[in-house]
């Protein structure tokens, strides 16, 4: 079913913190905005972080404020479970076709929390990067926006699920929903398509995917979060007691065979995660292997606080391999300048993997030039299509949100031109 063509000043693609910010800042500046997010809830990557550096505060705090701004603003139309199918034409009449996938539920005040526990079908849980499973009828996360239950599309045709769903106590489940397309005319498109963690299984000899207690930084965030699969308890997947943790910086970054660039945030992320360990396992020793510690600006204080912590040791060296040994995981690092080798044995290894722009791994409908790593090539001028935040360069949240606010300025100029 096609909806009538609707006109907006701005289309924002991607409902992570960058896209949400661009959308609401533009709307509050007087624009009409359509926000398209592929997942059932807004929040993107930061929704899966436990805390931000350097304040060690939860991302949901800022998201909550932005959600309220969105909720109360009639100028923003949010499409979740939606993706841009095609784009035709140029500003001020860019014609966009958006495909909206079914949620299989209608809004009801009833909360399925208790009943969903009886659901006989569960699915792999991408929110937790595949750790654990979730029920086929699920609430995306505690701070979900829109605040609605979803049926996992992988379970819709499962007879066991369909039979169970017949007992729906509130009449909110609607398995007959179908995909629909929406046609939009917009004056510019902000591509806030974000990033994904570099695939750590491509990293030879670092053990990810082979050794259970080798994790990545994004997975470690989930293990530290109170809404994560362990309820925030730091445990090694093998069940081994954790007394020693190693953080491996530049895992697949600053490396011509993987990501040649630096993601800029992984050092601060590991220092932050060192705090998670200190908080939960006060006796554990922490080793961080680095080439250069990159903590610009005020993050220097954040670094120094941790450098002074006797339980945190910083080792200069690039980790060459991680191996299972009798008493844990042996992390061997090579000092690239001196050639010296050093081995430290730990219980848990966290690979600080970098960011890869979404456009590096999938084709976007954007009419924009990309560099060989998938980042948008652009200047600061208004344009019909522009990348936002980590679509343009690897950035931390604070800088991403400067850029996201600035993207709304580009949208405003494009809207005023026409």
């Amino acid at each position, binding site marked *: 079913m096609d909806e009538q063509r609707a006109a907006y000043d701005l289309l924002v693609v991607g409902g992570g913190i960058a896209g949400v910010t661009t959308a609401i800042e533009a709307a509050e500046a007087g624009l009409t905005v359509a926000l398209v997010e592929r997942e059932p809830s807004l929040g993107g990557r930061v929704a899966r972080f436990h805390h931000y550096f350097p304040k060690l505060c939860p991302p949901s705090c800022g998201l909550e404020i932005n959600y309220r701004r969105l909720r109360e603003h009639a100028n923003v139309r949010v499409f979740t479970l939606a993706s841009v199918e095609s784009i035709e034409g140029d500003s001020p009449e860019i014609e966009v076709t958006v495909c909206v996938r079914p949620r299989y539920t209608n809004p009801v005040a009833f909360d399925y929390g208790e009943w969903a526990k009886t659901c006989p079908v569960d699915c792999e849980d991408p929110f937790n990067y595949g750790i654990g499973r979730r029920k086929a009828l699920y609430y995306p996360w505690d701070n979900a926006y829109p605040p609605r239950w979803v049926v996992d599309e992988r379970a819709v045709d499962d007879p066991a699920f369909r039979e169970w769903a017949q007992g729906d106590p509130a009449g909110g489940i609607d398995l007959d929903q179908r995909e629909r397309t929406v046609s939009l005319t917009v004056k510019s498109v902000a591509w806030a398509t974000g990033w994904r963690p570099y695939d750590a299984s491509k990293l030879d000899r670092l053990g990810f995917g082979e050794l259970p207690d080798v994790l990545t930084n994004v997975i470690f965030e989930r293990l530290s979060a109170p809404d994560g699969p362990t309820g925030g308890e730091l445990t090694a997947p093998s069940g081994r007691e954790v007394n020693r943790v190693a953080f491996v910086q530049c895992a697949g970054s600053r490396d011509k065979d993987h990501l040649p660039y630096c993601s800029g945030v992984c050092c601060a992320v590991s220092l932050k995660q060192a705090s998670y360990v200190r908080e939960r396992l006060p006796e554990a020793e922490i080793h961080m292997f680095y080439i250069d510690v990159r903590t610009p600006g005020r993050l*220097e*204080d954040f670094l120094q606080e941790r450098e002074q912590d006797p339980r945190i040791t910083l080792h200069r060296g690039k980790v060459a391999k991680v191996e299972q040994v009798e008493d844990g995981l042996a992390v061997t690092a090579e000092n690239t300048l001196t050639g010296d080798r050093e081995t430290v044995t730990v219980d848990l290894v966290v690979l600080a993997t970098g960011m890869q722009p979404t456009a590096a791994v999938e084709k976007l409908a954007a009419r924009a030039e990309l560099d060989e790593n998938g980042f948008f090539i652009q*200047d600061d001028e208004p344009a019909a299509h522009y990348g936002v935040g980590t679509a343009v360069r690897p950035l931390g949240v604070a800088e991403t949100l400067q850029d996201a606010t600035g993207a709304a300025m580009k949208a405003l100029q494009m809207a005023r031109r026409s």
Partner: protein
Amino acid sequence: MAETAEVKVGVYCAADNEVASAIDLEALEKVALTEMKAALYRNHPNLSSAESVEQIRRDIGEHGLSHVVILDRSARAFPGLFEFGPEVMVDLVPLRELVIWTHDANDEDTQMLAEDYLRMYVARTKNLKRPEPQELAVERRVLVIGGGVSGMRSALDIAGAGVPVTLVEKTPALGGWAAKFTRSFPTKPPYDQLQNGDMVRELAERVNGDSAIDVLLDTRVTEINGQPGEFEVKLENGGAPQQLRAGSIVQATGWRPYNPERLGELGYGKKNVVTNVQLEQMFANGSVLKADGTAPKSIAFIQCAGSRDKEHLPYCSGVCCRASLKHAMQLREMYPGINVYVLYKDIRSPAQYELFYQKAQDDPGFFFTKGEVQRVDEKDGVLAIDLDETLLDEPITVEAEMLVLATGIVPTTSVEDGVFAPGGGEENKPDTRIRDEREEGEVELELLPSGKKVAAGAEKGAKILNLTYRLGTDLPTLKYGFPDSHFICFPYETRRTGIFAAGCVRAPMDQAQAMMDANGASLKAVQALEMTAHGQTLHPRSRDLSYPDFFLQRCTQCKRCTEDCPFGALDEDEKGTPLPNLARCRRCGTCMGACPERIVNFQNFNVPMGNSMIKAVEVPEELEEKPRLIAFVCENDALPALEIAARRRMKFNPWVRIVPVRCLGSVNTVWLTNCLDAGFDGIMLLGCKHGDNYQCHFVRGSELAEYRMENVQEKLQQMQLEQERVQVSAVAIDEWASLPELFDDYYEQIEEIGPNPFKDF
């Protein structure tokens, strides 16, 4: 604000199986109609259905309802659903969250709780009305202060959005520091070639050629008065005063280099030792030569010269590593045989700049050494730099004919280090005026009522904006003199509404980042005009139309409101009576919480509202052994945390009644004494964390609440009550799991000290 004859309340209650099987709805209806005098009460099996919304709309018309109270889910659950136009006040009671999911079904205490919430919200709603928007005829012009990269980029953006700009620059030319640099870092693939410095010149040409931008050179701001939408700006242009009106302001006043005179231990003052900024000047002059006029055969760079150092600049300026790589490449071009030594702690070349660093590493003329410089000596025209080599863990000496100190960035808002620049133009000399004033102690620091100093003014006392605000002349700074604000989620969450910092004044950054930052700040400046014109406040209560009403006839000039406002919205007349500037106000209610006379109130959030909720709770007599606790809960973080805990079906202590507030700063102590008078056994205040890593988006609401509790403690003593009767706790939004325990633990404490002795009076 008083209850008027027109108040007609309609009450609607969710009545699906989940609710109807847990509480007695007939009893609820009786409370609504007989006790609370509601005009109408209806149960509905699906309140959020279109049919139900239509029913409410019909009732409003037929029964002339002025207020609608809906008992179902919290406002978070129903985005934009219950909207019945500007005449009707709608209040949502989170019945499922606060009662049904979190308490035992069909329990006497759960029923009492549900009835209490009904009473509290009906009582409250009678004190609320829709605010009339305070629209303002805004001056659609933005003042941009500073004509460097950030200021120029801002001006172009704002003009591009159709809003005229006045760009004020204190020197005779646009361009700022960047105009002095001949080359810049790569910003385009393959990210390994230096770019020429034309970008700055082109920006300046565009600014000069834009008819919507008035450029005022040689001009300083001498005074800013007024508020967003109508700032009155006084300027001084070569001794001649000038005036203009602007609706909002971008402060892009930039940076200056760290004073190298302080870096004697790194060799500054010796022959052939220069700073990175002085080296730029040499490049601009066309040649880099030693003091004897010959070309250097070797040159060393000391990174972090005066940076990442508690004795100098504790922070990292982020750009000096790249600047030195750039300089070294320029030198390698100029003198192909030259050897370049880069002595560093960490090379910081994030993002695509890594490719630029890789290019330098591939150059055989570059030598990178990681270490801490110990001393610099000069002998026979050669500089010997001793350093502790971090990697080999042994001291080494690097010799070079020239030495460059890579110094960092000091924001112009800091007067800590005077001003230093190559060439020493008049504008770059230390600003003795500021210094003298500071030494004479004329720069005011704010005091909290406790006598505690707070960094609410520009802490180093730089006077750039010259605001006539009660709380100081400039943007308040966080650490190290940068006028930043909550810098993670809301980079432009300014503490002086309508004034936004951009570029290096806000945080150290390079040109590309400064342009990005300017895009953001300029959006906020235009947005501020838009929202102010409609009477809407800015972030975080964006678009709130309510505003504080001051009943000044009863004002005692105690100055608490003017001192406590985190946004400097309130000025004072000579007697100390507040002079509100509503367009500066962010509607947090801190003034309302501060006022001992209770004369500051919002239309839809006020002291009588809180009092009515307190009085509406039925407090059982002591013999019934049903204690009552009340919790004032910040609606930004603690309240959503409670709702998350509720959705997760955690059980809450049955004795607690929740009152949501805009910010703990808005809690007036009269509420607390009224709670004690009403027989509540204990009072909790749940707000955001404060301190360096503060999470309060009204900056210091929870901190103020804590301070004000000291006064409450005195009151408790007078009433001969235990100090535990009032407790303030910090709760982050992700700490939902701890809430039930927090309530239970507090209850245990109260149980130990026993019931409130005023209960049965």
